[in-house]
């Protein structure tokens, strides 16, 4: 124990202990997170006799503190003296397992499960199992729900009499009065079934499962579907038909859409669990029904599973099942009334082409893809475009390109900027699949148009897109097609477009390589250092710093340095600052004077958040003057709005 070591080592611990009850939550949280340090300083005995009793009663705290405490206690075994004393951790975790906040309770249960492994079989029966029983028969449902998660960890390691008791407790909780507890039991049913002896799975679990699956509350029934997966994997194939399938069939046709939704959502797992024979006979018709369900949510969930379901069908007659049973339903879904259903389908439908092969894809799937590419909902079109790679492998993209182009153009000009943003992100992928010729012919203009979009996020994504395209098509292509256009924007009357040139150069310099950067880009950047707008000038400084590593030292010394030095004496404070930053960054043997650094520090902090790339805000009056003197065609409010967009 500490003490003799002197005050230096004790003081920080003393602070930590005192802060366990500080009024500031953040400090308490901090202390709780360093609980192991405190325990280490106190030693194992005082931890057991003083710290843990104190923590057991500290359940009044904020959720985040309790959550941290519950987590810490799961790793505390060594700090209380090793496995021999691990049961000392049970009281605080027990009280945490009864709080009303689900996340805290779950964390406490998680920690209890963890430390249960560290109990010796004797301790497990003497200390742990009684705790589980106490929780299971607690007055409040919070404790009973926590108990549900603990049965499975202690069951395998206790004597057969205790096992019988545990099974009895679990049975009781499955028919608890409160739906909360029944839900907890239903969600742990599968896990519990796994640790049970096979004979009890049949005798106990099946009856509980059937009861929960026909519970009066649909919130309980839907959880039984999940249990169905694990129970089905535990039973031999010949028992499935009689023991599980009646319940599963009933769930797939449940009156409540939420239960059917759950079946649809778990369909692939169910399919794997019940095996191919039952899949063929039972699940295929069930899946058809789910795809035709009257509730859109169910249809959407089922549509999401179409690809996975088809993939996992038994090989021998997979194609036949898909063509005769699944595809007709899919065809209907393409013209569904609900856009979420359509977009769920669109996100997986392309995957069917690999399963069905070239001929079927061209004959049956292609018309569907084309229909979806013309869908009124942008999300559907986007989902199709984002999954083009699957089709490309099977039939090549040329088949689609005629319909693809109008769809892309329409999305590219969509009124919602988030839709435009989404399509930009797929551009490199599309370019790769469509090839450079098609791209130059049809899509290049779109990519350039995005550079002058009125939303900053789009302009930014467009620059990034250019970089990826150059990486794909190479520097030569860049030099011929995009670099001239980008550099042309340097003379644009709108300063935002001029800045876009700089951002593009930042992004492209590395991909284009030293020659293009030095010969074509650098002169433009240097010329822009005389721009009227300070925003452009300080971005010149930033650009020079950025492209510095790509340039050779000759160009750096003879061309870049003089310009930066000139900018460092600019009348504008921020231009000066960034120029000095660039100088010190590029030519590290010229550290900036401390004076100017201090001078700019405040300004820098201000800028740090507000304008690392967009228009800046400095002292409004100055800025306003600058704007007016530039005779730009925007008002001050317009400027602020753009600023918000950039955010």
């Amino acid at each position, binding site marked *: 124990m500490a003490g003799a070591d002197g005050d230096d080592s004790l003081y920080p611990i003393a602070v930590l202990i005192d802060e366990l009850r500080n009024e500031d939550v953040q400090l308490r949280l901090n202390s709780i997170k360093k609980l192991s340090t405190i325990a280490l300083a106190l030693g194992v005995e005082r931890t057991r006799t003083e710290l843990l009793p104190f923590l057991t*009663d500290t359940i009044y705290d904020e959720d985040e503190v309790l959550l941290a405490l519950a987590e810490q206690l799961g790793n505390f075994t060594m700090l209380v003296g090793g496995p021999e004393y691990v049961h000392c951790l049970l009281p605080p975790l027990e009280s945490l397992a009864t709080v009303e906040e689900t996340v805290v309770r779950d964390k406490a249960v998680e920690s209890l499960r963890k430390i249960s492994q560290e109990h010796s079989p004797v301790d497990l029966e003497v200390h742990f199992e009684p705790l589980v029983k106490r929780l299971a028969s607690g007055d409040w449902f*919070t404790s009973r729900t926590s108990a549900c998660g603990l049965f499975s960890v202690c069951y395998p390691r206790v004597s057969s009499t205790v096992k019988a008791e545990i099974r009895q407790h679990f049975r009781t909780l499955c028919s608890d009065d409160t739906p909360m507890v029944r839900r907890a039991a239903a969600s742990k049913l599968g896990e519990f079934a796994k640790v049970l002896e096979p004979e009890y799975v049949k005798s106990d679990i099946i009856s509980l499962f059937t009861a929960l699956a026909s519970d009066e509350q649909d919130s309980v029934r839907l959880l039984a579907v999940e249990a169905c997966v694990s129970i089905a994997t535990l039973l031999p194939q010949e028992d499935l038909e009689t023991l599980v399938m009646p319940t599963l069939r009933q769930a797939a046709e449940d009156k409540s859409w*939420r239960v059917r939704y759950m079946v649809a959502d778990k369909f692939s797992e169910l399919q794997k669990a019940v095996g191919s024979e039952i899949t063929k006979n039972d699940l295929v018709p069930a899946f058809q029904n789910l795809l035709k369900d009257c509730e859109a949510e169910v249809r959407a969930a089922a549509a999401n599973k179409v690809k996975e379901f088809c993939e996992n069908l038994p090989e021998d007659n997979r194609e036949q099942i898909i063509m005769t049973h699944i595809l007709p339903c899919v065809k209907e879904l393409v013209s569904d009334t609900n856009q979420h259903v359509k977009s769920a389908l669109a996100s997986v439908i392309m995957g069917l082409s690999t399963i069905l092969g070239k001929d079927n894809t061209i004959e049956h799937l292609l018309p569907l893809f084309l229909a979806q590419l013309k869908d009124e909902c942008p999300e559907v079109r986007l989902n199709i475009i984002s999954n083009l790679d699957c089709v490309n492998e099977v039939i090549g993209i040329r088949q689609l390109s005629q319909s693809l182009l109008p769809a892309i153009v329409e999305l590219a000009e969509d009124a919602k900027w988030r839709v435009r943003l989404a399509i930009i992100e797929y551009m490199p992928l599309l370019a790769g699949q469509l090839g450079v010729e098609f791209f130059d012919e049809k899509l290049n203009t779109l990519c350039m148009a995005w550079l002058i979009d009125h939303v900053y996020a789009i302009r930014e994504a467009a620059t990034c897109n250019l970089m990826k395209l150059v990486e794909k098509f190479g520097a030569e292509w860049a030099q011929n097609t995009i670099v001239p256009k980008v550099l042309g924007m340097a003379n644009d009357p709108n300063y935002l477009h001029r800045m876009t040139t700089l951002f593009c150069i930042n992004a492209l310099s590395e991909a284009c390589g030293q020659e293009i950067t030095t010969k074509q880009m650098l002169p433009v950047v240097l010329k822009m250092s005389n721009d009227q707008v300070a925003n452009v000038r300080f971005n010149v400084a930033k650009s020079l710093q950025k492209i510095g590593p790509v340039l050779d030292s000759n160009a750096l010394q003879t061309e870049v340095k003089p310009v930066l030095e000139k900018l460092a004496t600019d009348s504008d404070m921020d231009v000066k600052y960034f120029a000095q930053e660039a100088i010190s960054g590029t030519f590290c043997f010229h550290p900036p004077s401390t004076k100017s650094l201090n001078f700019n520090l405040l300004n820098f902090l201000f800028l740090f958040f507000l304008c690392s790339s967009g228009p800046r805000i400095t002292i409004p009056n100055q800025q306003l003057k600058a704007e007016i003197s530039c005779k730009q065609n925007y008002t001050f409010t317009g400027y602020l709005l753009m600023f918000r967009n950039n955010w």
Partner: protein
Amino acid sequence: MKCFSRYLPYLFRPPSTILSSTCHTEADIISTVEFNSTGELLATGDKGGRVVVFQREQESKSQPHRRGEYNVYSTFQSHEPEFDYLKSLEIEEKINKIKWLPQQNAAYFLLSTNDKTVKLWKISERDKRPEGYNLKDEDGRIRDPSTITSLRVPVLQPMDLMVEATARRIFSNAHTYHINSISVNSDLQTFISTDDLRVNLWNLEITDRSFNIVDIKPANMEELTEVITSAEFHPQQCHTFAYSSSKGSIRLCDMRLAALCDKHCKYFEEPEDPATRSFFSEIISSISDVKFSHNGRYLMTRDYLTVKVWDLQMENKPVETYQVHDYLRGKLCSLYENDCIFDKFECVWNGSDSVIMTGSYNNFFRMFDRNTKRDVTLEASRENSKPRAILKPRKVCVGGKRRKDEISVDSLDFSKKILHTTWHPHENIIAVAATNNLYIFQDKVN
């Protein structure tokens, strides 16, 4: 009604009110009152955004008659006045409804709502506090760090009971119109909040999203013909809820059928009697409150003049109709002029669904025994109630001749209205909110 006599008149007022009922501020007016599921606690909300929770005294040997007395347990400010800057609207702090959650651990939970925001409150007790600091001595003086030679772990010591109320969740930004009711689902996982045109479904643990399950807003607001006035979950079937409309109809929805409940599965409406049709017919048929019976078989609705009981199996007419204050039928014109006709009276069942209670004017409230078909008018007032006396039935005279003890219709005080009442879930204890006074009546013990 024979069984219902007053044994002990309790009169509670929100703290900080001035004792004289003629001199109260607007903020003290009680706007909702609700027992919890065991009846041990009773909560009131007022126009000032405060919630007052009363707790029933435990039986003690020395004062056996005090059993049943409700004392203030906790008082807290649930809602504050706010301003919606986007719509330039003031949001009142008035508590529109309070609903208790079934008890889940030693603490109590309730939902309170104003026009826009629902809050989940936790009311918990604390009777221990940690003692012993390392850096401070017993008197709170900072100790010199160099004198710290050993570590002290704080010890919890008993202290006076402290009741704390903390806002655990805030469910906001989901309602464009005014919330008129909230209801907790029997699955203990979800609740609904209802405004004039929409019903939203929330998970009690998730505040950042809710699902709109009913939306009756027409595309063109000029076509608006009815609004939702109240909604409630079925007490046992977690998938069923009912909502009432200003047109006097009730719709029953089944959440199993579809995610959106715009289509109802049952529609309760009584055809209008052409003989009594008047200018006010539509206004007085508007339902101000809908309540499921505890057994879940019946629905009770309150409109301006009547209380109706509907069997869930019969949609075309109510099984029982009770006149609350039919004598006002002739005075609708003046009630329209002083806006009283728009008052929203609530109604409650007793624990066994055999008696119905609802409010009226002049501090009167009415009870109807569904088995004997007897009814009674009682008055909540301090002036004529002596402790341990039996509450005397009151009568309003309708004819020309006024008998002794009777009150003429013209002398009723329409400013004294009883809108909010609640009945203990198991016992004959009722709480009646009369403007800023809360009366708790109880029938004979033994």
